[in-house]
């Protein structure tokens, strides 16, 4: 594995932020995606959806400002942007499942070349596991972006021919933003749209478990 600098988690988030259309309604999942709100390009307006029943979330609450009746889907106290609204959780997921969100950004354990996503359960993990809102969101968003490291800690590809981890949803991913690349999932295969500074297509291909176009 080439010993070159990769994008940090924050840089992945910043890169993914550029994929968001102006004025779009967006849900951010656990992990790297949740950092995106802090890295929006100047002049871009995005409305954040939280599956516990908020549209128009603002920044996270500062110390002393926390209101535990106003938390996001990660249970973290947040603030409201102007023009926000509250609704019950069935309507919140009607938004995610019914194709109303313009973009959802989720974390991932594995993405297959067909755009299958595995992001809720590590095989053999202890405990009950938990699904949360990821399956509804993955099934329903108009555009689904996955943000993750390109490889596991052991260097194994997380972009694979077929997912071996328990699946979240089939053929749902549109774009993968990693610490090495931006990749679009197309009918004809995985299109390498962008490489991280200093990385070649060949190097990235070697760390990817499915062919890159």
């Amino acid at each position, binding site marked *: 594995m080439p010993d070159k600098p990769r994008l940090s988690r924050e840089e992945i988030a910043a890169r993914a932020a550029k994929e968001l259309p102006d004025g779009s309604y967006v849900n951010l999942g656990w992990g790297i995606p949740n950092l995106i709100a802090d890295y929006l390009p100047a002049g871009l307006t995005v409305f954040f959806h*939280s*599956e*516990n*029943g*908020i549209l128009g979330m603002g920044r996270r609450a500062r110390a002393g400002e*926390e*209101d*535990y*009746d*106003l*938390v*996001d*889907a*990660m*249970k*973290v106290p947040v603030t409201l942007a102007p023009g926000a609204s*509250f*609704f*019950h*959780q*069935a309507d*919140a*997921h*009607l938004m*995610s*499942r019914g194709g109303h969100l313009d973009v959802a950004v989720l974390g991932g354990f594995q993405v297959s070349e067909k755009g*299958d996503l595995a992001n809720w359960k590590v095989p053999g993990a*202890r*405990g*009950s*596991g*938990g*699904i*949360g*809102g*990821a*399956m*509804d*969101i993955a*099934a*329903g968003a108009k555009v689904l972006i996955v943000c993750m490291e390109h490889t596991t800690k052991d260097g194994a590809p997380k972009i694979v021919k077929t997912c071996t981890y*328990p*699946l*979240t*949803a*089939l053929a749902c991913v549109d774009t993968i933003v990693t610490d090495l690349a931006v990749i679009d999932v197309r009918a004809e295969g995985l299109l390498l749209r962008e490489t991280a500074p200093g990385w070649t297509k060949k190097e990235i291909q070697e760390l990817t478990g499915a062919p890159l176009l």
Partner: protein
Amino acid sequence: MRQKLFPSVDAAVADVPDGARIMFGGFGGAGFPNNLIHALARTGTRNITAISNNCGTRDGELGLMFKNGLISHVIASFPGPHANYFQERFAAKEVTLELVPQGILCERMRAAAAGILGFYTTVGVGTEVAAGKEERVIDNQHCILESPIRADYAFIKAQRADELGNLTYRLAARNFNPIMAMAARTTIVEVEEIVPVGSIDPEHVVTPAIFVHRIVQAKGIRYAG
């Protein structure tokens, strides 16, 4: 006229029998009926089926119920890494679990509320969630049949109730509460404030009184996260 106001949380839950199926509102520390949960734990009612997004945060929310071994089956979306009492019981096989995608959990409860006997969704197709469920293709989309989730009781939390049972919720403490209120046979709400009939603008009522059967004021226990 039938009286919905109860003098105490203990009185409001006194008749809940062993084996009851109960929905518990709340998400992320907001909107949990913590005072009702404590009252239920005091009754020692056992063998409860709990329907809730998560399974407690240490001693908070449903934590106490698992700590005391009062829940035997759970239908949940995200039990949670901090639900240590649940996780211990689950590991010891003292509690069984049905994991449900969060939106489908909402939708299955709403189906029960709305007299819908089943519905088809693409959510969960190709995943563990589809196991044992009828699959079919509608409009070229693979989908699975999901069934209603009903309950004997809903324990919910609201900010304000009028004496008839019209409810409003504070901020994101709304979450599952209005859906559960509609889905259960008997809905018990703990509120911060009871106001006279007519004080809530009819356009601002979130849960209409028809869905609320017992009201109790409880400014008490609160857990944050």
